């Protein structure tokens, strides 16, 4: 027996490497998403080369910014074992009130400060979520359902219900400020706006926090098993406040970008899209029960949905099919993750 054990000890890691695909998917579920994404892109590109035009790609890039920021926030909260459905309300509240404030009180405020203001507003609202979750000790789904109502209610009751059609000039300018410009076949000049940069930057930051700071590890620890994490000395409160505050910040940021790009602030906007964002994150391989997932996966999930939404027409599939396709992908991914779910 003295022989057998040590072998077995060293065995198992190899063991799980031997049976590679399964364990690979288990370790890096985002590969499934990537695979699906690549297949789609190739298929579409073959069916209609127009897909590879910069214009399409830039459209996709532009369209993924807001959803991407939301998704990063949701992912961080999922990683810590919570869930959030209030982020759209946070975005709506901050974007609308910031726009209003700037318009009425500080029309000259430099755009950077405007963005900062919105982000801070988001942090405040997010921290409220975090406090409630931490104090009430009820599932964050309930808390954020409650705050979704609260934040939206506050917006419509106290701040305003009228669309702001002519947003402050600096915001409008920010929404169009070009990062890249292309001249297309039909002499159209298409531009990749500067605000596109916000997404990769936010993704990098999130990745760095999660993988290179104690907070990051603490988030996953709490997501893995809150009681054990607490026993090992991680402070649940700190983690709760951070993840919800951080998600709030991203939501505020997303909101202000949404306004700047839309050139109108509609207080009824955004709310109702929570499920799509959560779907994107799940497609990215994060487990809804927390403790898993990756930033890159989240971004892939978002891209997948955005691409599906924008390319179907290119291959002549009516846009009403979008949901059908996305739905099947979600279930497909779920099926792929089964073995992983089983061991959970």
């Amino acid at each position, binding site marked *: *027996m003295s022989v057998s054990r040590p072998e077995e000890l060293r065995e198992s890691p190899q063991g799980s490497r031997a049976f590679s695909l399964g364990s690979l998917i288990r370790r890096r579920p985002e590969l499934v998403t990537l695979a699906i994404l690549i297949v789609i892109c190739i298929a579409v590109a073959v069916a209609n080369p127009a897909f590879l035009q910069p214009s399409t790609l830039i459209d996709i890039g532009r369209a993924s910014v807001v959803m991407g920021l939301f998704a990063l926030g949701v992912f961080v909260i999922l990683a810590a074992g919570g869930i959030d459905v209030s982020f759209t309300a946070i975005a709506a509240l901050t974007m609308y009130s910031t726009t209003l404030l700037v318009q009425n009180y500080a029309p000259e405020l430099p755009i950077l400060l405007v963005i900062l203001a919105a982000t801070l507003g988001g942090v405040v609202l997010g921290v409220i979520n975090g406090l409630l979750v931490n104090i009430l000790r009820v599932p964050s789904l309930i808390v954020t359902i409650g705050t979704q109502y609260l934040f939206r209610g506050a917006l419509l009751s106290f701040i305003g219900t009228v669309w702001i059609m002519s947003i402050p000039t600096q915001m409008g300018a920010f929404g169009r400020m070009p990062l890249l410009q292309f001249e297309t076949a039909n002499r159209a000049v298409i531009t990749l706006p500067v605000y596109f940069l916000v997404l990769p930057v936010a993704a990098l930051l999130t990745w760095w926090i999660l993988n290179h700071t104690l907070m990051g590890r603490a988030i996953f620890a709490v997501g893995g098993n809150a009681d054990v994490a607490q026993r090992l000395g991680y402070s649940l409160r700190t983690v709760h406040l951070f993840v919800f505050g951080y998600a709030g910040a991203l939501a505020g940021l997303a909101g202000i970008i949404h306004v700047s790009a839309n050139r109108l602030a509609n207080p009824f906007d955004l709310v109702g899209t929570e499920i799509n964002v959560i779907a994107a994150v799940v497609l990215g391989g994060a487990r809804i029960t927390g403790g898993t997932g990756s930033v890159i996966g989240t971004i892939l999930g978002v891209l997948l949905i955005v691409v599906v939404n924008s390319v179907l027409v290119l291959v002549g599939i009516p846009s009403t099919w979008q949901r059908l396709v996305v739905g099947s992908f979600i279930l497909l991914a779920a099926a792929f993750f089964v073995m992983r779910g089983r061991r959970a």
Partner: protein
Amino acid sequence: MQAPENAGGASRFLVMRNIHKRFGGVHALRGVDLSLELGEAYHLLGENGCGKSTVIKIMSGAHAPDEGEIVLDGKSYSSLTPIQALSAGIETVYQDLSLLPNLTVAENVALSEQLVSSKGRLARMLNGARLRETAAKALDMVGLPSDRAFLATVVSDLPLAQRQLVAIARAVATRAKLVIMDEPTTSLTRREVDNLISVVARLRSENVAVLFVTHKLDECYRIGGNAVVFRDGECVAQGPLEGFTKRQLSELMTGHAIDSERYRTGRPGTEELFSTSDLGAGSAFRGITLSIRKGEVLGITGLADSGRNELALAIAGVAPARTGTLRIDGTDTAIHTPADAIHAGIGYVPEDRLAEGLFLDKSILDNEIALVVRQLSNSAGVLDKTAGARLAGKLAEDMRLNTRDLDLPVGSLSGGNQQRVLIGRSLGNAPKLLVLHGPTVGVDVGSKDTIYRAIQKLADGGMGLLIISDDLPELLQNCDRILVMNGGRLVAEFNAETADEDALYQAMLTPTARISDERIAS
């Protein structure tokens, strides 16, 4: 026994005075006094549920005591936080291992070090290099591989034995002053235990105090040091191991020294009720052939890794056996699911009533009738409520529950009463054979008595009972025969009337070839 004070030396590291802890109904610790010195080894001994884990959780800041004082490095606290305990150098290997399943081995082993050095503040960079370095050292010490691949393995992918070692590695990874291990060897083999023992020796040589919780007495003797004996939440003895014989220790633990009176008075019937032939399940157990007569109480014991638990689960259909046959009332019966077992007339009382047995926040009534709803409902599946209430009332009566309010959530009952509910439930089904898996685990003496009397009454009524437990006095007092499992096989049979704990312990501990080895050999 000697009072803790006398044990005091200059290098007294941790002192606990008059510690009390209650969990709802359960008075887990009732005035514990304890003192630990650096460089010493201590063995916390006691029956299941006597408070060992609880006292440990208090030392490590996982629980706050209701009363009492903790003096740590001369500073006095009314309770500790995990960070306080950790930064004072108290490292714990919890009974449930307390690993983070979704993190890597390296992180599980070495993150705490960085967390502690940052005083629990999280706004800090993570030092990956140092993480791997620390982890590798610790893993080497406990005899696990320390290559990058293993460091990067996610803990939930590891087999149990390796997880236990990882938990131990975490404890020795930092500059600990006191390392606590709560039943660290339950799923380790002899060889890993030897390795562990050398680790302990090394720690002691580095002037680290080690506190062991274990049910395996002769491991204590191999390690040496002091014995700390608990009984029902009190520290009944503390002193050098050499000062005690095994028998004395078990007497101190059970408190039955003077009156080890047998509850078993009746005699088994002659008719065979239940039998297995050559039952086996992979490497867990094999070749199990046993038989139980009507009205007989059969005990099975063995170490936690002896396969006794797997055998119980197999008979209950939770984890069915792969080979061999089961006979009930002379008819071969296939049991693949719990439902099969229930229909075959086998009642099962699981070991961990919390995770496997009870709906903690459901009412007593709901829990009692959960199993028998089928009998209580007509063909259309419509329930007869009053019948349910009547039955539940009767079961509560039979099991002498301490409350008549059957609407109380079971979670609000004391451990002992929870266990009575559990046993009562399986009786509702009027089983032919009742399998009791650790019937008094974490149950206090008062409840034990009730449960034992109930067991005997059932046997006298002609029911066959199979008790699987590592609580030896329990078996000796309640059974007709006791079978000992070791390395997945039945290795000995005793007549409970004549046998004693030493003999049983010997049979449990004498090393045998493990099935897995044979398989590898063949």
